[in-house]
């Protein structure tokens, strides 16, 4: 059977809507603010080889890493109908420990091997470890929480109670974890039902044809995009401030070679893995590369494994972009991924000067805290990321106060936050003048002030305090980030970009996120724009 243009379009959308529907069900029935409000999750459909055929437009940072989870689960476990694999080990298909991934094989009637897999990954609010919300400073993965290699969470359609009990005994908010996992399982089952319906309606033969056609189709799309980039070798570097333990900056270096319809991305010369947790496992690096090249496509297509086929990746083992056990990795997912994007775009700006934007805030400004709720006397753990300024584009200002590149999570409404946790938000505003000047301005970052009404232990994982987001084509950099803790005594402590701290009730944390870089030489005395 051959594929044709009309049916290709139809199957592409059919697979994609299954992923989107799974995502909607998960979001609406989950309990972690990370999943339900911030939408830090991804759902995807895989073909019988474990290649992505469709991923919902959820979290770019999961793009390259979801396929790895499925590959590892297939390898490690004999998955039978009704089984669900669970994992979070960054060194076995995961990203960082709070991201728990479930994988479910789909066996249509009369088929012995799976025709599809579905997977979903969600960032849980706490996975144990040294700090509440499991996003604090750490030096090895053992400090970062409960590590789950591929195991069966369900067998033959039933949850394995021992596995669930073992997990719940190791986290701070077990009831919430259980609820989130139930929602994840339900979303997997939904995907299973839909794909089985598809197989019944269209026949297994046809499904196989279009699984393959989609991979070829997406590869072709990427080849077309690469062909439009001038051939050449493009190099650049950028830095992470530090690893939270020393003052040493950490370089990321990349060489991108474009030749015809192929690309090679090489990270030789990047820093070795560090003592702190800004180490990225290879899957994160792949995600960031996937994201950058997908932005160049100019077509709105579901993420498909074929898109990556024309791109070769070289990441030295044991470096900060391909960390090995037992390196700590909590911030690799959220911080290093952003810097990889920055360095890739900086290199590509030379090839495509009229398309590439200046650097965006380049950090997710992760804030986590927890303690005992004075109202319920129960432990609580909360995690959020704070937006920044978007880099200016070659034809437009950057947006103000918006999540960029590898994340697109929403804020938790203040009225929801204060109703659930002992905090009061004092300020949530744009950081005026933080965007870099230029012919086009970088977007402004954000100022967020949170008063703790109970004693908490908290952590900040952020970056761009020392190396501000770069401008391009003569544009100025955005303002660097800044964090302060105002104690009840009014004493002001300046905090570094990565820190774990204890704060007494009545203290106020003030976070200023970086602005985006400007693009183009600023005109003299350009009038400050009005929004």
């Amino acid at each position, binding site marked *: 059977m*051959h*594929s*044709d*243009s*009309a*049916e*290709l*379009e*139809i199957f592409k959308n059919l697979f994609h809507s299954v992923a989107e*529907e799974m995502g*909607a*069900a998960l*979001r*609406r*029935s*989950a*309990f972690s*603010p990370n999943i*339900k*409000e911030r*939408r830090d999750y991804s759902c995807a459909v895989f073909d019988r080889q474990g290649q992505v055929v469709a991923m919902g*437009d959820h979290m*770019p940072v999961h793009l390259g890493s979801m396929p790895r989870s499925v590959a590892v689960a297939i390898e490690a476990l004999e998955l039978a109908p009704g089984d669900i694999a669970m994992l979070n080990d960054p060194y076995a298909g995961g990203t960082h420990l709070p991201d728990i991934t479930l994988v479910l094989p789909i066996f249509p009637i009369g088929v012995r091997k799976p025709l599809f897999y579905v997977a979903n990954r969600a960032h849980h609010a706490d996975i144990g470890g040294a700090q509440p919300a499991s996003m604090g400073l750490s030096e090895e993965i053992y400090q970062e929480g409960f590590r789950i290699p591929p195991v069966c969470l369900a067998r033959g359609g039933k949850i394995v109670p021992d596995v669930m009990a073992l997990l719940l005994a190791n986290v701070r908010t077990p009831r919430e974890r259980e*609820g989130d996992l*139930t929602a994840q399982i*339900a979303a997997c089952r939904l995907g299973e039902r839909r794909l089985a319906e598809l197989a019944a309606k269209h026949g297994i033969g046809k499904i196989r044809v279009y699984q393959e056609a989609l991979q070829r*189709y*997406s590869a*072709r*799309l990427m080849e*077309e*995009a690469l062909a439009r980039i001038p051939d050449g070798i493009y190099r650049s570097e950028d830095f992470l401030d530090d690893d939270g333990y020393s003052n040493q900056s950490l370089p990321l270096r990349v060489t991108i070679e474009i030749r015809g319809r192929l690309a090679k991305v090489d990270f030789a010369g990047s820093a070795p893995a560090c003592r702190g947790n800004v180490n990225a496992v290879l899957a994160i690096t792949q995600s960031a590369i996937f*994201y950058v090249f*997908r*932005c160049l496509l*100019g077509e709105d297509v579901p993420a498909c494994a074929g898109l990556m086929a024309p791109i070769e990746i070289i990441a030295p083992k044991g470096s900060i972009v391909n960390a090995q056990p037992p390196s700590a990795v909590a911030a690799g997912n959220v911080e290093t991924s952003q810097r990889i994007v920055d360095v890739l775009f900086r290199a590509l700006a030379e090839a495509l000067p009229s398309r590439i934007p200046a650097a965006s805030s380049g950090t997710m400004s992760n804030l986590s805290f927890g303690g005992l709720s004075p109202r319920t006397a129960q432990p609580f753990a909360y995690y959020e990321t704070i937006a920044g300024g*978007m880099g200016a*584009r070659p034809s437009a200002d950057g*947006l103000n106060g*918006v*999540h*960029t590149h590898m994340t*697109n999570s*929403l*804020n938790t409404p*203040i*009225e*929801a936050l*204060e*109703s*659930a946790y002992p905090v*009061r*938000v004092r*300020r*949530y*505003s*744009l950081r005026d003048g933080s965007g870099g000047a230029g012919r086009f301005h970088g977007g402004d970052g*954000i100022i967020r002030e949170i008063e703790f009404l109970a004693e908490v232990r908290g952590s900040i994982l952020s970056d761009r305090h020392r190396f501000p987001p770069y401008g391009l084509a003569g544009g100025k950099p955005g303002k660097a980030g800044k964090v302060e803790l105002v104690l009840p005594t009014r004493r002001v402590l300046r905090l570094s970009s990565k820190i774990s701290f204890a704060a007494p009730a009545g203290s106020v944390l003030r976070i200023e996120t970086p602005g985006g870089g400007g693009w183009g030489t600023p005109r003299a005395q350009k009038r400050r724009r*009005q*929004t």
Partner: protein
Amino acid sequence: MRIAIDTGGTFTDCIVIRGSQIRVLKIFTSPDDPARAILEVIRSMVGANARHSLLILHGTTVGTNTLLERKGAKVALVTTAGFEDLIEIGRQNRPRLYDLNVQREPPIVSRVLRWGIRERIAPDGAILMKPSVSALRRLKQEIRHSGAEAIAICFLFSFANSANERAVAKALQTLGLALSVSHEILPEFREYERVSTVAINAYLAPRMGQYLARLENGAKRFFSSKTPSVRSTNPARPPLTFVMQSNGGVTSAARAIREPVRTILSGPAGGVVAARWLADLLGRKRVISFDMGGTSTDVCLLDGPARTTHETVLGGLSVAVPVLDVHSVGAGGGSLARLDAGGALRVGPESAGAMPGPICYGRGGVQPAVTDAHLLLGRLDSEYFLGGEFRLDLERTKRGFEYFLRAQPRAFRSQLNKLMTPLDLARGIIVVANATMEKALRVISIERGHDSREFSLICFGGAGGLHAVELARALGIRRVIVPQNPGAFSALGILLSDVVKDLSQSVLLSVPKETSHSAQRRRFFQQLEQRMQQLEQAGRAELRKDRFPAEKAQAQWRLDVRYVGQSYELLVPFTLAFVETFHQEHAKNYGYADSARPIEIVNLRLRLILPTAKPKIAPERRIPAADVRSAALAKKGVWFGRRLYRAGFYQREKLLPGTRLEGPAIVVEYSSTTIVPPDFVCGVDEYRNLVLTCHAQ
């Protein structure tokens, strides 16, 4: 006398019912001043009947267009200090993930017109800080000199305690500007959605006020000139205007001026109301309304009364007032086809619009559109299109499709092997467009736990009849109903709409566990009931203020419920069994329920309804084996699947009740065409609806 007027982008539809007679009039909209076309319509429809009191029911796009075109008022926004930028930050996400040129809609209130006031309410409603007198004095001064035309006020937690908002509103009242205050417009939690809704309300209020005043004055003038009899002992009442809201009910003009944000998604509402009415008339509980126009298709599932949603986004801005749960996709008759860089055939969301239109209009369109595909397949006939006023150019269309295929790169050869001829391309375009609409229908039915096979499809809008049958087949729907005057169906819905008032109140109350003391549970229910009653009293008072007979209104009590810790609620009726209902709904919607988990009530929702007397339309007698010869126009070649059939074309107006047309056949009327494939049969029922069913059943 009731007259419904539905202003659309191109046409203004007007409908009047007298006895069982429906009169319809269609004229071009006057975009510069929609009131002009309306007054013209009223003049010609009402004529000598002006002595009777006149009720104008109006569906207007003034609010929608004012927002989308950004032509609203200069709004001063007053927020809690520190949160002035909330309206700009929104939910801090971007609308498209992989678009380096992504833009967000600029906020409707610019930075210089936002004021922060030092005040604070706690989540439990406690006042932590009151606005100071001096701050209020200064605020008033500054707003007075800012040139603002309207004011929006939104403080944190005002749904829990409105005292601070009321204090500020009181201080600013004397400025004489329209005030939109968040605890009045939308006393619900989630500050961004609330501030956005309230700011939009303020943004629209002055324009809506001017527009409706012009309309009412025009009607009044016209009316008084028709009733010169000063001596008349029984002078008729002046005409009244009601305005269609997004929730599927009408409200008074005065309320629409105060709360214009409730009208901005009323466009698709009329059709949904009419679909519900028609379904009831035919004794069908479950129907899906399917409205396919030139650029988009609106679908809505009706399993009983129409449902509303509170999560609408219009033009990139959040609108959290109740809106009929209509799902819209970018596929219509004008949707354009192209091959993307990977060789997949895309159809829509880009549309040819009215200018240049599809290739077959001959007005310069060169890219194949859905309408062109139907023409090539023989399903449209240029002689009958729009009553023959408009000739469709078949030759040009064929050449256009041939050119399109020749222009594709060789790389797609293998993909294109099934799209070699213009006919293949036409079939491909229809299949892809159908898939988009099928997805929309799945989203509202199967994905929400309904079995689509239990529903009938009510199909209207210009292009609906060309696609409805294939979609019904794909979803196992057994019956497609095409009402009379499908082009004026929305206007009919407006005419039939009840007066509806929606109220809500966030409460965030934990429900005591089943196991807890029964006295405690009883007390909880009593409290809940009391709060509902308070809300109902407030609602009735507002209806009275709008001069409605409030005591006759029916009240519906509902609750937004969720498990403690979730962020999305499910709406359930307030009965003693609401907890069980919630668990059932949760399982139906999300695939699981957990009766051991604590639940909470997020919002109380109240709806007050003053039913409108529905017209009694007498069924006509079915004539067994009615003669179709007088309706027959011609027999022509029409493609269904890969076969060419000779199909009869029939004129809809001449088909009598009791008619039975075997497919293949085509039914044409002024503004729409319905296809009957070979395995379908088309009947005409006693209300002159076309009813299409599959032979196999």
